[in-house]
């Protein structure tokens, strides 16, 4: 992975790279190859700090691959990808990023609390941190509204409850960047609303950055900024209002479809000149 020095040179020391001047995520020429396929093609974008950025696009457009690249679990990433001022995958980032995979990744044969206790012990090990861990775990269980199920086995929970356990793990240790891959899929409307309120609360209260993927377009309206993706490329990078105004659309969904049509036409126009 080639990581050139990126962004404007920050005047403070490298170790205090929390300033709003540096975006939470900075990508330039980001390309990912999986097997014979190029999944991401030279992406360039910034994710600003302290906001909720929605990553939207149809299934298979590369959302998950982009998220895995940011978290540092994706192989064969080329180009520049800086996360919180460090190259993606840097060891010091591992406590600063919370990540939720699409399928809930928790231990089905442990209770909700046991799951969180274990992951908390990995994030903040040692007996000295035991009290802090305990209050963190209790708080997180409350945040995802699972207090009444804290002692149930994760495997006995419903699909929506399990995905909230997975989300709770990502919230542990108050990470600066939360990368959530379709966290609201399969949840009922009330829960979805509550979770979005929680996301906004996390962004406002903790100043955390959230990158949330979804293929449900109505969730886009709840984001501060949107990255619209299609076939491994970024179609648009703007606020929901600006997108709607620019495309003269009433909803983000319409705006997205408009942009897709434009992109298809543009690529058709290029074809014959080959």
């Amino acid at each position, binding site marked *: 992975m080639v990581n050139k020095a990126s962004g404007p040179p920050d005047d403070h020391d490298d170790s205090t790279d929390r300033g709003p001047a540096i975006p939470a995520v900075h990508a330039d020429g980001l390309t990912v190859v*999986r*097997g014979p396929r190029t999944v991401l093609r030279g992406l360039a974008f910034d994710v600003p700090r302290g906001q909720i950025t929605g990553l939207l696009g149809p299934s298979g457009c590369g959302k998950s691959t982009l998220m895995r690249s940011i*978290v*540092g*679990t*994706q*192989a*064969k*990433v080329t180009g520049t990808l800086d996360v919180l001022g460090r190259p993606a*995958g840097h*060891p*010091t980032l*591992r*406590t*600063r*990023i919370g*990540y939720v*995979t699409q*399928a*809930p*990744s*928790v*231990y*089905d*044969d*442990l209770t909700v609390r*046991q799951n969180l206790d*274990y*992951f908390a*012990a*990995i*994030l*903040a*090990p*040692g*007996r*000295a*941190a035991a009290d*802090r861990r305990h209050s963190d775990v209790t708080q997180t269980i409350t945040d995802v509204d699972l207090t009444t199920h804290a002692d149930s*086995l994760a495997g006995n929970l419903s699909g929506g409850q399990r995905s909230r356990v997975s989300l709770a*793990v990502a919230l542990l*240790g*108050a990470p600066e960047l939360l990368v959530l891959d379709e966290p609201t899929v399969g949840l009922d409307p009330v829960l979805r609303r509550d979770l979005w309120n929680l996301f906004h609360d996390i962004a406002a209260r903790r100043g955390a950055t959230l990158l949330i993927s979804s293929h449900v377009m109505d969730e886009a309206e709840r984001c501060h900024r949107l990255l619209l993706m299609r076939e491994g490329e970024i179609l648009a990078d703007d606020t929901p209002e600006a997108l709607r105004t620019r495309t003269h659309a009433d909803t983000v969904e319409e705006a997205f479809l408009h942009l897709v049509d434009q992109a298809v036409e543009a690529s058709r126009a290029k074809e014959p000149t080959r």
Partner: protein
Amino acid sequence: MTTTTTPNLAPAPTSALSLSRTTATAARVLRQLRHDPRTIAMMILIPCVMLLLLRYVFDGSPRTFDSIGASLLGIFPLITMFLVTSIATLRERTSGTLERLLAMPLGKGDLIAGYALAFGVLAIIQSALATGLAVWFLGLDVIGSPWLLLLVALLDALLGTALGLFVSAFAASEFQAVQFMPAVIFPQLLLCGLFTPRDNMHPVLETISDVLPMSYAVDGMNEVLRHTDMTATFVRDALIVAGCALLVLGLGAATLRRRTA
């Protein structure tokens, strides 16, 4: 670990091996098993039942029972731990928890040592019960110390854990994982000297058995069976088994990738 006055959000360092992360992992693995009492009961009881069976199969020839029984005391923990570990790590890979853990500040060594520690504890219980039953109730005639039998059993369990961890990287499903048992364990079982002394085998097979770790596990058990003291051969056998376990654990660690396609 006594880091008393760490600032609240100081990022915890990711070292190759952290004692508290290793013990947390071992505790988690044991906690998972505790929710599955049937597995624990089977792991602990089946070797005892098999020894009991064997004792009366060889009712007329106690000498045979001595030799096969001692060998089996070393082979059981290896097979059990191999199966349990390969399935457990496969589940960790397929459930996404491995990816999640490796995106966290967990060293690969922590994870592997955690598994080895947890299954080591189980292996101690399993081997202690089986050895105790064989020596005190089934009349297994051991000249050396039963503690040495236990030591070899523990090393075998470690080897089983290591092999299970390693092969799970090459299994895409539980079906494949259990097939590694006949593929990896059976040849060793046939060649380790359990059925016939190794020097009676075809020279080619004897050479192969010389490089298979289970052969040394069985040799070590037989040394304890026949000698009062810790012989040089015993020490060599124990070291070879331990060395192989560590080597395979290292290979297993290499199969854990933070970045995957």
